[in-house]
């Protein structure tokens, strides 16, 4: 469950916009400062932990670079909602502990709307407009990974308990 303000982006937001090639050799923290800067220069500056990123069609299209998804994790984004996701971005984001939900009503969300996202129930509450949306929840095994904080902490837990 996360609650935060909505940051709304359009269709086909690609991995180069999320992790510009120019900063690929920078530290994770430095690179995250440039996440989506050419689309919305305020985003990386003003996003606060728990905020929700909303995208349109084919969110994360482009290369397999993990840094595109990792930046949202570094910025502590609470969830990503999009009409659809590009395959490798979607998986990378989940692996970095960020819930991603397919959200057909993405266009009803306006910048700054206060959203509460429950990935387990598949429930999105728009606290600004008072509307409620139901989407496909994340299944149990992915939720478990998300709750652990992503793939690496999840594997650590799994291997610690196996030993």
């Amino acid at each position, binding site marked *: 469950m996360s609650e935060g303000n909505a940051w709304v982006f359009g269709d086909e937001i690609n991995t180069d916009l999320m992790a510009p090639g120019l900063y690929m050799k920078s530290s994770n923290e430095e690179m995250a400062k440039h996440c989506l800067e050419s689309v919305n220069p305020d985003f990386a500056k003003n996003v606060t932990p728990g905020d929700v990123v909303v995208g349109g069609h084919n969110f994360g299209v482009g290369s397999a670079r993990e840094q595109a998804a990792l930046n949202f994790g570094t910025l502590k984004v609470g969830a990503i909602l999009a009409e659809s996701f590009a395959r490798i971005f979607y*998986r990378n984001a989940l*692996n970095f502990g960020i819930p991603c939900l397919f959200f057909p009503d993405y266009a009803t969300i306006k910048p700054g709307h206060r959203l509460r996202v429950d990935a387990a129930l598949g429930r999105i509450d728009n606290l600004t407009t008072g509307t409620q949306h139901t989407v496909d929840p994340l299944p149990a*095994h*992915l939720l478990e990974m998300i709750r652990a904080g992503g793939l*690496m902490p999840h594997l650590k837990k799994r*291997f610690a308990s196996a030993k």
Partner: protein
Amino acid sequence: MPQTLVEKIIARASGQGAVKPGDLVTCKVDLAMLLDSGGPRRIWPRLKELNAGVWDPDKIFLASDHFVPAVDAESAGILKLTRDFAREFGIKNFYDMEGIGHIVLAENGHLAPGMFVCGGDSHSPMGGAYGCYMAGFGGIEMTAVVLTGEIWTRVPETIRVNWRGKFGRGVTAKDIALKLCCELGMDNAFKAIEYGGDTVRAMQMSERSVLTNMAAELGAETGMIEPDEVTLNAMRAAGRTPAADALSWRSDEGAAYFAVHDFDAGALTPQVAAPHAPSNSGPVGNYAGMAVDQAYIGACVGAKLKDLQMAAEVLKGRKVASTLRLLVAPASKQVTRDAEKDGTLGILLEAGATLLPSGCGAYAAMGAGILADGEVCITTTNRNFQGRMGASTASVYLGSPYTVAATAVAGKICDPRDMLGETVP
């Protein structure tokens, strides 16, 4: 319920009786392919962090191909780490500098119908030509795969793409692949592309794998071709005896497809994709006359023996234009040996080609043959994103080996049919 090929494989690998598109399941991995690029150097530090080893060294295939041969201290270090990883974990299927992983994998009989294979490279769908599921994943996921032998997947919907009829002279599987990038677009996430029809059936594995390789350009989960005698013969040639049920790995009659597309191969002409996307494709005539600085025959998709033979058909008795350089990087050492034996290599060298080592090389802007500012290149490779082959101001056009070879002779983009004549020799 009738099922598509990909559904059958995922049902088997996940231990479910049946699956349907959209289901999220955990699959047991039959084989994990690691390459020097996204393999040990990304995975090993994570394994150390977890204080863990690999699940089954015999189910890991490892090849060094992106950084070979080392051109600087950084690539030398990556290759050393790759070799150390193979030694440390006892990975017998380690192919060091034998060629591009996707090719070496097939050459050595590692693929079979019905397998569930994960590859740490975006062009992993290439393996689907053998009727297996093979998809690409990021380094972080491959860490989990080599550690646990499992991966979760969302069962993709299947798009069936049928090609019927005979190719005209000078038209190839690559032209189909480029045409599909434009027709189907590059955003087919969570879909498997299944290629069929008599045009595909008539192809050898080399051409079939061009189609499945470029399912990656379509944004698909994977590309697949149902196995037949051609598949089984290729397996035998690679020293692997097909299982008795190998041919049963095909889509059931009446299986539900997300979409079915039918195309006429007879109407297809040589295609070229213009900068900076494979989907930016059209008939070669649209670009005819464009002066070119470099012609490149290379990559997993475009430097197999058959590709070199196609180039040789054009180059036989001709010379590379003095205004242009032709670089040839055979996809594997085996390809180089075979091309040497059947005279193909001699024809290419006689025409003036420069021979490069087998590997990803210039194509991934890592090895020899990268482009300068403003240069124009035509290549047999699969991607032409900005900066892919060097300078970001360079322009890269994609074409078939015929088209690239014809352009090398003319010095400008040229329809290969002008040089091949009308009839197949």
